């Protein structure tokens, strides 16, 4: 119990004195995970929607693979990205290993299947509702995707937030490809892992509370921005 209490106190102390290191790693956490979220959403939302309305031969197989990829182990993703970006790897010349960019790449790979899969589930229901009307109105494929994404934006936001949650709390992959370098690639989760390893539980827990608060704030901010609660249910 003492450690938890000390952790809460540490969290308040760090926030109260606006600890420079804390602010830096918090902002980097946000930068990495939000960038990964934007890129992954740009890929996954149209893809999941397309998968819901398009009938093709290996559709079921693709969906099964996608659902399986939702549980992709971050450590393995980190390892593969590490090998690809390392000096001897195919993308070694780009010098991306141990940079925030490498961390973004790893997180995009981890959360894209998750967002795409949730999108697909949500869009499939909406599509079965809209199907007859959109066919009857002689819409093009593009117009259908746009209509579904627009009218399903609330469920898509849930998908995106799930992706963000996974990205911001993820440690295995970014530890490997980022390297947890102070003032370069250290983020909240890797710092927590480090402080726990050093035995500084109060600081680790303090960072943990900051991380949880951050996740809450981002979720609430996105909900407020898109006015989910005000516009009522459909």
């Amino acid at each position, binding site marked *: 119990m003492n450690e938890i209490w000390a952790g809460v106190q540490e969290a308040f102390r760090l926030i109260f004195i606006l600890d420079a290191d804390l602010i830096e790693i918090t902002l980097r956490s946000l930068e990495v995970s939000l960038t990964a979220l934007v890129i992954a959403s740009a890929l996954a939302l149209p893809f999941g929607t397309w998968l819901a309305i398009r009938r093709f031969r290996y559709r079921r197989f693709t969906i099964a693979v996608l659902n399986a990829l939702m549980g992709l182990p971050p450590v393995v993703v980190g390892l593969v990205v590490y090998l690809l970006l390392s000096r001897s790897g195919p993308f070694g010349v780009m010098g991306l290993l141990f940079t925030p960019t490498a961390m973004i790449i790893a997180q995009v790979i981890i959360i894209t299947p998750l967002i795409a899969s949730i999108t697909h589930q949500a869009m499939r229901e909406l599509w079965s509702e809209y199907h007859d009307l959109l066919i*009857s*109105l*002689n819409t093009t494929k593009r117009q259908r995707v746009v*209509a579904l994404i627009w*009218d399903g934006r609330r469920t898509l936001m849930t998908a995106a937030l799930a992706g963000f949650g996974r990205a911001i709390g993820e440690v295995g992959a970014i530890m490997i490809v980022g390297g947890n370098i102070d003032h370069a690639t250290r983020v909240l989760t890797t710092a927590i892992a480090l402080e726990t390893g050093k035995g500084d539980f109060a600081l680790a827990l303090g960072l943990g509370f900051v991380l949880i608060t951050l996740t809450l704030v981002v979720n609430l901010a996105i909900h407020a921005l898109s006015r989910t609660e005000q516009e009522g249910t459909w």
Partner: protein
Amino acid sequence: MVSPAISVCLDSVVVKRRGKTVLGPVDLCLQADGFTIVLGPNGAGKTTLLKVLHGVERVSRGSVQWSIPNAQVREAQAYVFQSPIMLRRSVRQNLAYPLQLIGIDKAEIASRVVDWAQKTGLQDALDFPAPRLSGGEKQKLALGRALIRMPKVLFLDEPCANLDGRSTREIEELLYDATKAGTRIIMTTHDLGQARRLADSVLFLMNGALHEHGAASKFFAAPSTSEAQAFLNGDIIE
């Protein structure tokens, strides 16, 4: 909109689903104007016939020939479903959607939307979410959304099922006005009274086959097949 008359002929059309014939073979020509009611018991193939004409049903055999090119046919048609499909948007956006799809400019859309909201009695609900309207209002909105593109042909699949008398009357008035404005209407119904009120001509389907096609007055006065006679008498035909 002045354009060539739009008529259609079905040439021995057959629709099969899972090896079972649900419609046909049907040979049928429909002229460019008037109000046709499609009658028949459940499972007679009424909806399938409408969907074949609308071009959204796969035809197993035979062909559908319109008097104008295929590309224009779909633009000139609209379809109202038995249970109205509401986009999860406001009434205004639902009315505007078909026009946005074909790239009409915003000012024109706005004025037509207000116009049709008035015609369908939804002018006070323009910013209300469409999925939360009552059943009758939804169907009126669906009808307004179908008519807003000023289609030459309008298909309706039992638009007044589950509606009360007043909503039915309002919808019938809209349909009557649309016919006067030159829209060709093809509609299925179970309500014989409605069929008598609206129909110029009648198609009578049973078990996927077309039993009668002719002027409404003649059909209701003296149907030529015993099945149609039984149907009009209110007997249960199977």
